[in-house]
């Protein structure tokens, strides 16, 4: 036991010594990365999609030839300012906790008369194939820019979803033994050069959640939170969840709850 303890202590001391020697190089790398990110910030291609989403929101479409202007995202029909920042939440009319995307699809089905399969077929874009959902979510997200995230999860159904999200966050499986927590449960770590953030804290979850939806330069597309989390599961080498799956909404509820109070800065732009 004592031996084990000593081993750990020696290990920590060795790491600390290393950290010192690489610090100078690291800070230069960090400076150049900051320069890179700053250069991208002015001129975010997500802005092009936001304009498109704005058009789609007010355009009369679908079998019912209706716009989405009466869509209730939780603050009342047509109330968009700050709506994204307070999702996911419990909706009486469906009896479910819904995130921005499941609620948007609900509106497209109920208000515009689309079939769910029809509107979700292209839920994310591919080169040369635009996604209406991506554009709409970018537009809806931008309407919460500058607003604090507010998901207290005080309704019992919301509290339950947040708790179930926490369970999934720590659940390990697959050929790499991954869970969300192994990369996102500690302070001050990075994967390659990307800061990870501790998503169990307000700061970490806030930094992560406030910039979505976000234009990803590595993908050449805006990613919604559903897309982000479904891809996390792909990276964990797990099978593919359904779009709008409850497990994804549960994770979102958990993360938004942790991030509550953080001011949104969206659409973001990142690697």
């Amino acid at each position, binding site marked *: 036991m004592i031996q084990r303890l000593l081993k750990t202590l020696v290990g920590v001391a060795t790491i600390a010594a290393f950290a010192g020697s690489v610090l100078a190089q690291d800070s230069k790398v960090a400076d150049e990365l900051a320069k890179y990110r700053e250069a991208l910030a002015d001129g975010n291609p997500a802005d092009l999609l936001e304009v498109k989403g704005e058009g789609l929101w007010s355009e009369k479409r679908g079998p019912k030839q209706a716009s989405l202007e009466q869509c209730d995202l939780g603050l009342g029909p047509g109330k968009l300012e700050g709506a994204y920042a307070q999702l996911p939440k419990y909706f009486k009319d469906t009896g479910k906790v819904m995130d921005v995307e499941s609620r948007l699809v609900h509106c497209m089905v109920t208000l515009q008369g689309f079939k769910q399969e029809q509107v979700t077929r292209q839920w994310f874009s591919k080169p040369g194939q635009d996604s209406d959902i991506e554009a709409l979510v970018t537009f809806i997200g931008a309407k919460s820019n500058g607003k604090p995230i507010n998901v207290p999860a005080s309704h019992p159904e919301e509290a339950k979803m947040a708790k179930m999200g926490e*369970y999934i966050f720590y659940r390990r499986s697959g050929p790499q033994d991954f869970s969300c927590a192994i990369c996102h449960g500690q302070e001050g*770590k990075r994967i390659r050069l990307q800061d990870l953030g501790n998503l169990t804290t307000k700061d970490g979850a806030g930094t992560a959640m406030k910039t979505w939806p976000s234009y990803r330069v590595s993908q050449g597309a805006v990613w919604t939170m559903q897309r982000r989390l479904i891809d996390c599961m792909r990276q964990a080498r797990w099978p593919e969840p*359904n779009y709008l799956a409850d497990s994804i909404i549960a994770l979102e509820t958990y993360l938004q709850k942790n991030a509550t109070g953080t001011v949104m800065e969206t659409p973001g732009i990142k690697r």
Partner: protein
Amino acid sequence: MKLKFALFFALSAAFGASAQADKPVDAPGGKFAKDAEQMFRSSFRTDNSKYWMARLDQDETMKTCGLYRDNPPRKLGEKLEKLNAATIRYPVEGKLIGDWKEGEKLAAVGTGGHIGFIQPDPAGKLRGGNCYACHQLAKQEVAYGTIGPSLQHFGKIRGNSEEIIKYAYDKIYNSNAFTACTNMPRFGLHSWLTPEQITHIVAFLIDPESPVNKD
């Protein structure tokens, strides 16, 4: 933080004040853990193959680590470490140190094994160790992660004794044999890397000619 926990558990165990309980007081999901497991399982596309879905199954290590947020009480941790140590297999040839150049390639590769329908890896895509995602290794690679400790000059510092070589091999094969619930994958246990591939990564860490040690 983790060290604090380790200290706490180590000390409490040493004083005989057993910290072992069947369940931690704050298990993730609380009273909804069972519901959450069911919901999670039923959230996947029905056209995922059975073989893919099997990747969601958890062994005892995974279950315990999740339950304790990767900080199991020391006694449980030791039990898991013994369990995992028993899984380690060695290459048929018996040689634990291979070709550092092969290891260097594997350390940089982060692809392989992705499934699903959006961006799966094509069949036969090389599965790498993705060591740089979490560790600093060769000096010239600046894009390294910090989830794990720096391994720069691994061999230069520790030498190339048989014990060190075996330690490196065992650690890569099954990291949980040393530290239960570490963030590091169990590369050998899951056949993510073959024993031969592991020997190449061992060489990358230990061979004096490897850029890990040379620069």
